[in-house]
């Protein structure tokens, strides 16, 4: 194992110019988002969103927070592999995965504020005289906030190394094991609870998603999505920075992912059959179609990268990672929006589709993530050092 470790290159800044076409586009998108948010905070949620009393939660909650945080599970999934299952060979994947997670979660936390109608009271969630421990959202909010802090601490060695803070890094290393442990337990808690959020919505949620096992389904998919995002992001980073793709790591990682995915599929269909809810999947309506799109995305990776040979093909790994991410998107959109019948069988006339400004804010948040990732990987030691750079 030790020899395996020494073979890895330590993380190093990628270097290069921060101003290019990608960062410029990100900057423009972020400026548009800020302008829209100004309107939102001055005139209220109705001024920029299509939210209504039939659909009080739109894409700022479901995409920015529920999906955004699931996409940020790479750090958690890889950390589990390296530190809990002691697979040290995946160590080079940790920092980049953690960085993406850090951004995903921090932005999910910030994004919540945009959506809160009475945001100045936000601290009430953490204040004992106000907080309601029976509320699933209380658990989600406390857990996500704690996890954001834990992740910044976990990632801080990258900053300490850059700024030569040797003592700080040493001190942090002494408690790192505890941060790592917290960093696995907290996401288990809130990723499952993000699913539990829909339980109190009761019969308004289609039985294809309204199950007492929904926390387990959300947790399993969050872990699988975590690996899917690592595949996706490793391929994108390799192509954007013209670096070697870490196939010797991605191939076995993809296999782990397929194992978890298989477990999820078994639990998912087992639950539907046991509850007698599978019939809803064969109705001729949009909800049933959305269910099958979700399932096809989750089943596609078995066809794409089922064989070891296929898992050495970067293009297939990339497509499989993307399919998993799409499956995660659909599962969460379905559970919260498409499978949400606000009138419980009575057509109350409410409809929801995100407005353009609403979409631009979600896109702007994504741009913040991309821009932050570029700046940090170019200036801080995150990605493994490339041989070419060592030679210089």
């Amino acid at each position, binding site marked *: 194992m030790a020899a395996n470790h020494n073979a890895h290159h330590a993380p190093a800044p990628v270097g290069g110019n921060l101003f290019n076409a990608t960062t410029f586009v990100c900057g423009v998108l972020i400026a548009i988002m800020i302008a829209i948010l100004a309107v939102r905070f001055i005139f209220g*949620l109705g001024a920029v969103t299509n939210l209504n009393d039939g659909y009080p939660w739109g894409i700022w909650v479901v995409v920015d927070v529920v999906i955004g945080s699931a996409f940020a599970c790479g750090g958690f999934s890889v950390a589990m592999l390296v530190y*809990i299952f002691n697979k040290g060979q995946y160590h080079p994947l940790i920092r980049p995965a953690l960085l993406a997670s850090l951004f995903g979660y921090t932005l999910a936390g910030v994004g919540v504020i945009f959506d809160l109608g009475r945001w100045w009271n936000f601290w009430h969630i953490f204040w004992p005289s106000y*907080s309601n421990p029976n509320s699933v959202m209380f658990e989600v909010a406390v857990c996500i906030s704690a996890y954001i802090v834990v992740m910044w601490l976990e990632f801080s060695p990258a900053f300490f190394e850059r700024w030569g803070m040797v003592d700080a890094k040493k001190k942090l290393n002494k408690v790192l094991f505890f941060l790592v442990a917290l960093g696995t337990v907290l996401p288990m808690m809130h990723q499952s609870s993000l699913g539990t959020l829909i*339980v109190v919505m009761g019969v*308004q949620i289609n039985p294809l998603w309204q199950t007492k096992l929904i926390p387990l389904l959300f947790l399993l998919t969050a872990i699988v999505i975590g690996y899917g995002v690592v595949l996706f992001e490793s391929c994108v980073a390799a192509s954007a920075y013209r670096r070697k793709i870490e196939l010797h790591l991605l191939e076995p990682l993809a296999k782990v992912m397929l194992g978890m995915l298989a477990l999820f599929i078994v639990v998912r269909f087992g639950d539907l059959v046991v509850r007698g809810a599978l019939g809803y999947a064969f109705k001729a309506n949009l909800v049933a179609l959305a269910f099958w799109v979700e399932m096809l995305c989750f089943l596609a990776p078995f066809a794409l990268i089922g064989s070891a040979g296929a898992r050495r093909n970067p293009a297939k790994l990339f497509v499989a990672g993307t399919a998993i991410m799409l499956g995660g998107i659909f599962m969460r959109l379905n559970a919260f929006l498409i499978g949400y019948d606000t009138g419980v069988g*009575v057509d109350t006339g409410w409809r929801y589709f995100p407005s353009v400004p609403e979409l631009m804010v979600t896109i702007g948040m994504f741009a913040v993530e991309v821009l932050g990732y570029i700046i940090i990987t170019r200036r801080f030691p995150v990605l493994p050092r490339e041989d070419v750079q060592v030679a210089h």
Partner: protein
Amino acid sequence: MSDRRNFLKGVVAASGAAVAATALPTPAEARETKQRPPEALGLLYDATLCVGCKACVAACKQANDNPAEFSTVDQLWDTPLDTSGKTFNLIKMYRSGTMETKDAEENGYAFMKTSCMHCADPSCVSACPVSAMTKDPKTGIVEYNADACIGCRYCVAACPFGIPKYQYDSPTGKIGKCELCRHRYKDGHYSACAEVCPTGATLYGKTSDLLAEAKRRLALKPGAMAVFPRGNISGGKDQSYENVVGNYQQHVYGEKEYGGTQVLKLSGVPFEKVGMPNLPPEAAAAHSESIQHMLYGGLVMPLAVLGAMTFVAKRNVHHDDDDQKGEN
């Protein structure tokens, strides 16, 4: 190769066990659906007595200081199409075919009141992360406190009746919903909608009294004459009068739905056709809190998993550090 296979098994088994153990609430620990408090207050709305005058809608606006809302071009008077952050009570109309007969499902018309049902086990109260939505332990009134509210609208999403509504047109929007006029009790008043109702279609009182009254009506002979109370059934002056007995559906809506509600309803047209959803007897709040208590009760499960993770991480992270020292 076999090493990798064993490892994969380990990953799947360990993660599976960890998550499965945390996601299966056992019936023994399940939180039961809550029942109405014995002194619960509520309303009885009898659609067969309602004449659609909407005096209750106007009185509600006045009692709660809410502005008029318009749905017509000329904006002459209050014409909301649904309850909203500024309309807490509304009479909606059911229409079928020729609309000849009142309270007939075919070729008829009927009215239905829309306002908070004051559930025995409210989803909104369970959902609210900051206790802005609470249920009074004595009266059972589901109360809202804007000073605590963070505006997350989880209550809006959770309610199966679509009752808590948010004011989207304001930068400081609040949730709006019926609180049974609890602010008027100190002046000897009760729910304004029941106070002004000329036919007793909306009746105020203790839910236990209202439920007995509802069952009395269901036992009457349709078309016969009977005495109907008006105003407050549990006190105050007698305002009862004689009227024709309606052709009721044999169902007191709210008696059992989601564990029961404090506002009860009678109707001549099937409830689902007049916008009252078909709900199971167990409250969604009970399911949700069963899962939460099972997973987080006393923080036992999270601390146990954290302990195990800390133990394993301590071994593995340390080992990792040594390697890094070797590198440097």
